[in-house]
């Protein structure tokens, strides 16, 4: 805690000296808009911490194959619904031995219910290591590899840090692969919604008048339909025999078709207030064309607002995807997303016997929470001149 301000002080002290001497005598207003925004954003501690969380999630999503201890399809009939193992650091079985390991399982079938019951077998330790060789995978579908960030040293040993599902597949690996699909659906969905939103909102706000009224009615109408029933109806219409990729895009398009309204409203609102500003009038009197006025003079002053709305829209998409997939209307297995994984937790037997099947929901909550904090942070720092 105490070291931080000191370090920041030395940072700001050395940076101007090394770059440009003129920057030392900077006056307020000499900084660019984005610098001001960034400075305010940095003071938002929750938002900064959330940025790190989201950054890590993004890394996990990008390098899913490598980060996951195994592949999501890797099943083991001997470990159905195996409970999570605790990762241990110090082995005291004979002397003190540093190193990662987990305890093995011993399982037996309940003679009445035929369900497997697991006990931790403390005599059997499974060494765990970093950058170990394990299940083969295709990195990004491009080249084969078998190194994993973390995994059992002996690839055949069971390691289920977050437990296993009903087919004995590793929950941790599945959640990691799900990160890729769930986060990217949020991003792609928001990108599509943004295109629709900025086009319609911009047109509506810039031209005003009758165009504005028509677009406003359209927005009001879209917002007046309860989203979940509408989404359910639209996704139910996606044929089951479509391939995973087609379904993925169909779902994304459906999510963005309903998600654009908020963005359009934000864009329109900013446009309306900016249109009356003196600098816009000045630009027009200087002979700037419409496109140039919008691009060079209006866009920069509301980019941060739009970035904030975009960031706040991503979690909504992620929530919607998980809800629809949970109902079985969205993505379908074998595609792995957080919502698809939650399908496992649909009945009371699986929740009662294997509560760790609820963990993908925790991943949803963490991602949504972090993105919300970032969005709030950007929104708070979007107006640095206040």
């Amino acid at each position, binding site marked *: 805690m105490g070291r931080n301000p000191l370090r920041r002080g030395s940072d700001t002290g050395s940076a101007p000296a090394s770059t440009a001497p003129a920057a030392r005598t900077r006056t307020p207003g000499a900084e660019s808009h984005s610098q001001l925004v960034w400075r305010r954003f940095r003071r938002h501690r929750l938002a900064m911490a959330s940025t790190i969380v989201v950054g890590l999630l993004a890394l996990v999503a990008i390098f899913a194959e490598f980060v996951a201890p195994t592949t999501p399809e890797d099943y083991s009939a001997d470990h159905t619904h195996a409970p999570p193992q605790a990762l241990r650091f110090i082995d005291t079985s004979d002397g003190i031995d540093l190193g990662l390991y987990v305890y093995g399982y011993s399982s037996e079938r309940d003679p009445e219910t035929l369900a497997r019951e697991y006990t931790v077998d403390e005599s059997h330790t499974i060494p765990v290591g970093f950058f170990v060789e394990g299940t083969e995978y295709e990195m990004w579908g491009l080249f084969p590899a078998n190194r994993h960030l973390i995994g059992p040293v002996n690839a055949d040993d069971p390691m289920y840090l977050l437990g296993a599902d009903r087919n004995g597949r590793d929950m941790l690996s599945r959640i990691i692969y799900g990160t890729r699909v769930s986060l990217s659906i949020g991003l792609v969905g928001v990108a599509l919604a943004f295109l629709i939103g900025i086009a319609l909102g911009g047109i509506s706000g810039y031209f005003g008048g009758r165009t504005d009224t028509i677009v406003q009615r359209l927005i009001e109408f879209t*917002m*007046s339909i309860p989203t979940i029933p509408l989404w359910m*109806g639209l996704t139910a219409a996606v044929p089951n025999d479509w391939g995973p990729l087609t379904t993925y895009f169909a779902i994304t398009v459906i999510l963005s078709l309903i998600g654009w309204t908020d963005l359009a409203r934000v864009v329109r609102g900013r446009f309306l207030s900016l249109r009356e500003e003196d600098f816009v009038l000045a630009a027009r009197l200087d002979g700037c064309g419409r496109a140039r006025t919008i691009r060079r003079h209006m866009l920069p002053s509301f980019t941060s607002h739009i970035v904030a709305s975009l960031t706040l829209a991503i979690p909504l998409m992620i929530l919607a995807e*998980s809800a629809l997939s949970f109902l079985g209307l969205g993505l379908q297995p074998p595609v792995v997303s957080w919502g698809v994984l939650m399908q496992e937790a649909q009945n009371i037997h699986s*929740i009662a016997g294997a509560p760790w099947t609820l963990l993908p929901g925790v991943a949803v909550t963490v991602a949504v929470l972090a993105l919300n904090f970032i969005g709030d942070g950007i929104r708070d720092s979007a107006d640095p001149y206040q």
Partner: protein
Amino acid sequence: MWAFLIRRLLYMVPTLFAISLVAFVIIQLPPGNFLTTYIAELSARGETVDRSQIEALEERYGLNDPVYVQYLNWISGIVLHGDFGQSFQYQRDVSELIWGRLGISVGIALCTVLVSWAIAFPIGIYSAVRQHSAGDYVFTFLGFLGLATPNFMLALLFVWISFAYFGQSVGGIVSREYVDAPWNLGKLLDVAGNLWIPVLIIGTAGTAVLIRVLRANILDELRKPYVTTARAKGLPEWRVILKYPVRMSLSPFISTVGWVLPTIVGGEVMVSIVLSLDTTGPLLLEALRTQDMYLAGAFILLLGALTLIGTLLSDLLLAWWDPRIRHSQLEEA
């Protein structure tokens, strides 16, 4: 006032028409229809399908007509006779199936709005007046958590906790011993006892938003000079806050009902499916899966209509509450 009301009601007509179109398009979107799904199911079980019987059914339901004829038949049935068509799955009138469940849905939505107000109101005021206090941080954090957790996840967590720690399996609104009983105090208490959990779960996200809106509004108002004036005149602190800033902050609070309602209806659908409540959610999901088109269409249409009515009510409430809005509306009309 009346002119405003009538104008708003007239506005609803084209919107309702558009919603009915959307609902119909949605139920027509999946390839095939209920009969093809049904036939596929029968042949999968190895049963033979009588061709002439199928044709008779297609004829009866008008499935071979062009789409616009089907729409006209459907919508004119609803408008002229209040006839929502037949459910293929249940072989009964859609209206028979739907009204009871819709009633429960509306009941739950109303309870949820009231409960979220009751929770958000004191917490919002507290968080604003005691900004940066420990309580404010706790509530803000809980609010964010409530926003970030999917409703169905909360419902699942609740199912798990009640099963693992209390040995109860949850589900249903009316307990078994009261299902066929006439309405009396015991049944009412039983329903209230079962209902508060879904209401709380559905309300989380809405409540969280309301708390944040109220808190932000009051914070804005508290900085205004009239608050200082009121204090300087010697009003007790609670009166200063309740009489002016809180009153000023309530308008956005009321107007949120309009957009909170669609969220609640949606959340209710999800939560009901998890907790197996006899509301619209599970039936709508099943109807969509089996392509029971008239049943699904009626649900989407009626939920949309309900949302419109909710928005209208919230606007009227707002006009009644806030003279500034009332006057501007009157000028417009």
